[in-house]
Each structure stands twice: as C-alpha cells, then as structure tokens.
C-alpha cells in the first residue's frame, strides 16, 4: 500500500514561487520521514515552469495542474480546483503558507471539505498520523496545540519564515494532472498590478535595529534610522510602537508581527514581552540596551548594556562615523 500523502500547496509570487512554499517543503520532508509522501501541489499557467524552483527542495512529487486561468484565479476558483484534487488523491494532510493568499484559500477549501484547519501555525509535528499544529493565540501570549482527530484531510497554514528552507537531494517526480476549472462569474479581478515592494517587512532584513517604548522619541527614531543605514539593516519595533503613525504591522517584531532571525539584532528600549522574545530569539547575535537592569530582554541577549538607549545609540553611531 502506498504511503499517505502530505501536501504542500505551492503559492505564486508574481513570476516566482512564494518562499514559504519552499520552507514548507523542507519542513514537510522532516515530518514525513518514511511515513508520508511529500507532494507539492502546483497550479500554474500552461507556459509556467515554477516547478523548477521547487525541485531543489526535494519533495517526493510535484503534481502540476496547468490552466492559463490559474495565475489570476480567485480564492473560490482555487479552492474548487484543490477540492477536486483532494477528492481524487485523498491526502492525509495539507499545508498552506499563512500568507494573505493562503489564509484566504485554505478556509474556503476547509469549508468545502468540512474538515479542520489550524491557521497561522508556528510549529507542526505528527503523532502517528495525527497532525499536531501549534498555533499562537491571544496576541501570541499563548500557544495552543490543535489536532483534527476524526476528519481527513488535516489542514494547517504556517506563518511565513517560521521554518528555514533547505535544499535537499532526492529526485522529485514531476507529474501532471487535470481538474475542471469552474469559473466564478460573480467575482472578477479587473486589474492586478505588481506592487514594487519597497516596504519589505522587517522579516527580510539581516540586520535589525529594534525600538521599544524606551526609545520612542523622535530623536531616538532618527538616530536608530541612521544606525540601521550604517549597518545595512532595517528598523523594527515592538508592539507598543505600532500605535505610532509612522510604523505599521510590517515593522513589528514578535510572534504576532514578524518572527525574525537576522544575523544581528540591536534592541533599544525594549523590555521584552514573551511574544517579542520568542519572535526574535533565533537571531544569531542579540544585543539589548535598556534602563531597567531587570528587563527580561537581558535573559535572551548576548550583549547587554544597562542605561539610556538614546545615549548608547548616539555613542554607537558616533563611533561608526
């Protein structure tokens, strides 16, 4: 009897594969061991070859459905195609990236399948054939382990950058299959233009200057901006600063914002709520400056200075210059 299938739904980012897809393939492979067959489901146009960006990560199979309508298909059309594939292949579990697209299609598919979906997970494991999905809630102050014991397939969406994509050996079998594309006339995408994403999230930066309530003045932000430029990095903030107009959710570090692991993070005026610490603790080098010697941030830092964040930043910037 063939092994049950563990699916990773590939997602497209303009002309490329969304990095979360690759991250999920690596994770799925480590979960599968010999128990599951890792299958990447790829819905693409007839002229596309996005599979070329997936083979290096070594899924057992890349199963492709080609239709020129897929690149601009709506959530319901995607979910409908996936439903047909699920009916045909009966996978054990399905993983989505918890991107905007993934978080829109997955629940629609879940409703079609009348099964369980755990959204925005930070960890996954299998207990036998049961997928145990770890999901944050209450602004990431609490973690829940959630299972779906009696319904198949099991579904989860996983927060981007939670896992690291690692190229792997192994030959991915590439197969193609077909579904019937059912167009939904009541919803039309009338324009779609690429957004030149200058506002990369703090999750993409390799060096991060992070500011919290203790470094929230205009002067501090100004100094931190210059410091980030010197380091070739980006500013990030803890949750309280997202209330300021100049910062958005894209700038927020922490499990409820961006889970990050840069090679260097400098934390200024951040005392360190649990969700913040857990959200950046995989950074390679962690530096903390805070006026409060008892701030929890010092527990997870490699280097720490107890004192005024603004004064320290100014001194650091002066020495860089």
């Amino acid at each position, binding site marked *: 009897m063939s092994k049950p299938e563990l699916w990773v739904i590939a997602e497209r980012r303009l002309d490329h594969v969304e990095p979360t897809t690759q991250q999920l393939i690596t994770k799925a492979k480590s979960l599968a061991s010999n128990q599951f067959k890792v299958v990447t489901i790829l819905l693409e146009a007839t002229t596309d070859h996005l599979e070329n960006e997936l083979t290096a990560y070594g899924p057992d199979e890349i199963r492709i459905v080609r239709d020129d309508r897929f690149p601009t298909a709506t959530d319901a059309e995607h979910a409908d195609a996936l439903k047909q594939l699920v009916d045909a292949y009966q996978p054990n579990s399905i993983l989505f990236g918890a991107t905007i697209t993934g978080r829109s299609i997955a629940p629609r598919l879940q409703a079609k399948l009348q099964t369980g979906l755990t959204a925005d997970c930070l960890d996954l494991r299998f207990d036998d054939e049961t997928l145990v999905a770890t*999901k944050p809630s209450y602004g990431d102050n609490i973690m829940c382990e959630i299972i779906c014991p009696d319904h198949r397939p099991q579904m989860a969406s996983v927060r981007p950058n939670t896992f690291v994509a690692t190229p792997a050996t192994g030959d991915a079998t590439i197969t193609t299959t077909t579904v019937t594309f059912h167009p939904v006339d009541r919803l039309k995408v009338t324009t779609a233009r690429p957004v030149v994403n200058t506002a990369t999230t703090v999750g993409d930066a390799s060096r991060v200057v992070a500011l919290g309530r203790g470094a929230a003045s205009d002067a501090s932000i100004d100094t931190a901006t210059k410091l980030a430029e010197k380091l070739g990095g980006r500013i990030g903030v803890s949750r309280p600063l997202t209330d300021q107009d100049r910062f958005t959710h894209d700038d927020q570090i922490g499990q409820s914002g961006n889970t990050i692991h840069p090679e260097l993070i400098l934390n200024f005026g951040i005392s360190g709520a649990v969700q913040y610490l857990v959200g950046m603790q995989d950074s390679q080098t962690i530096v903390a400056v805070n006026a409060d010697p008892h701030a929890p941030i010092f527990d997870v830092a490699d280097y720490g*200075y107890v004192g005024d964040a603004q004064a320290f930043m100014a001194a650091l910037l002066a020495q860089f210059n």
Partner: protein
Amino acid sequence: MKIVVCIKQVPETNDVTIDPVTHNLDRRGLAGVMNPFDKNAVEQALQLKDANNDAEVVLLSMGPDDYAESLREGMAMGADAGVLLSDRAFAGADTLATGYVIAQAVKQIGAVDLVLFGRQAVDADTGQVGPIVAEFLHQPQITYAASLRLSGPNEVTAERLLEDTKQTLVATLPAVVSVRSELNTPRYPTPRNIQLSFAKPLTVWHHDDLDLDDSRLGQAGSPTIVTKVYAPEPVKRELTPLTGTPTEAASQLIKALKHRQLI
C-alpha cells in the same frame, strides 16, 4: 440594501495567563469588548450606509448573552440592529461549526446583500470564519479588502493588497468581504448614539429559531480539538555585560561585533 457585519467579543487585553494547576486559560477578570478589527468592518458598513441612505446595517454575533454588550457598542456606532446567536448547543464551536451557524443565521435574516468581517479576531487570530461563511452561502469572497465601495446597483468594487499585487475586484452581490484594519479609522460611538442605541432592536436567536443540522453544531460539529495550552518560554543565553559610559560600552560592542565578523 442590507449589510450584515459579523462581530466577535474578545477579552479586553491579550495578557492572559495559564493556571499553573489546571493548565487552563485563566480568563478571570477580563472584560469583553468588541474585537478591534471588527470595528473596521462596522465602520466600513456605516460608510456604505452614509453613502447610500436606504442601507440597513445589522450586526451579528455568536456567543453567550453578555456578547450583547459589543453588539450594543456597534449599534452605538450607528448600526441599526443586532442579532445574537446564543445557545448552549453552539458552545465549544471551532471555526467550521461557527461558520455554519453564522451562515444559517445570515440566511435567516434574509435578503442580505453584503456580509462583512474584520480581518481576524485578536484572541484566536484565525481569520477563517469569513471564507467559511462565503463557501457555505455559495457567495464570492473578497478577503483583506483595502477599500470597498458600491460601484453599481448590485455590485461592489474592492481593492485587495496581496504580498506582491494590488488587485481590483468587482463582485456581484450578494458577497462576503473581510476588511483590512488599515482601511479606515472606526468612529467613536457618540454619547447620544450610545443612549439612542438602547431603543434599537437587539434580537437573541436560540437553537430553535434557526434551521440547523445538530450534528454540525458546537463541539460535535467541530473537527478540531485543542489538546494543550501553554505559555511560550524564551530560550536563555549567557549575557556579556557592556559597561561604563555609553561611549565605552559602544566601543566594547563594536569590538565584539567585529570579532563576530558582523561588521
């Protein structure tokens, strides 16, 4: 035009703790408020109403009787009526079972043109119920709308910002839309509207008021089970203190970062 806005009541703060003995979530003393993201959906509905005088905005929520408070808050913002789905049979529902009851209630309200959701609840953070309801109602969905307007007698136009693409979508009504929190700033309920909201109808529907398949309700109708709840623990590291004046400490740091080949 009839607009239903689905809202959830959530704890006032996310600073919840785990009971060290029972390992259950300790929610004692947490007052309930309207999910902040749902206020954006209410605001969006009210803006559509402002632009279209005959629109009626009905708020819909599922939960215990005290969820009436957040419905009332939304009515004080300007919604016309509230419907609370409250029954022990609905308790313990996950997103699928919740979506089912909400969809049945939307059908029961009748002649609904538009169902609006906030992007997600701040407590459970799933954002699933909107698409589930859309599927159960067999309606088009627009998630994470960055703008929304009526563009025809029976049509809405929305912008949606994906990771790499800005889409314009046109949906024929009825449709389900979930909105981003950035799309508007919710209005405050004015003191007068707070008072007047108590004259508006707030209806409670129990199990028997809806057409329901009992196997799809509550815990029995929920495929997922929460098996464990815990507070995340950060991993500790050995700290090298930087000492002296800021200038001295900064120079120690530069030396250390050079040593680590970071600069």
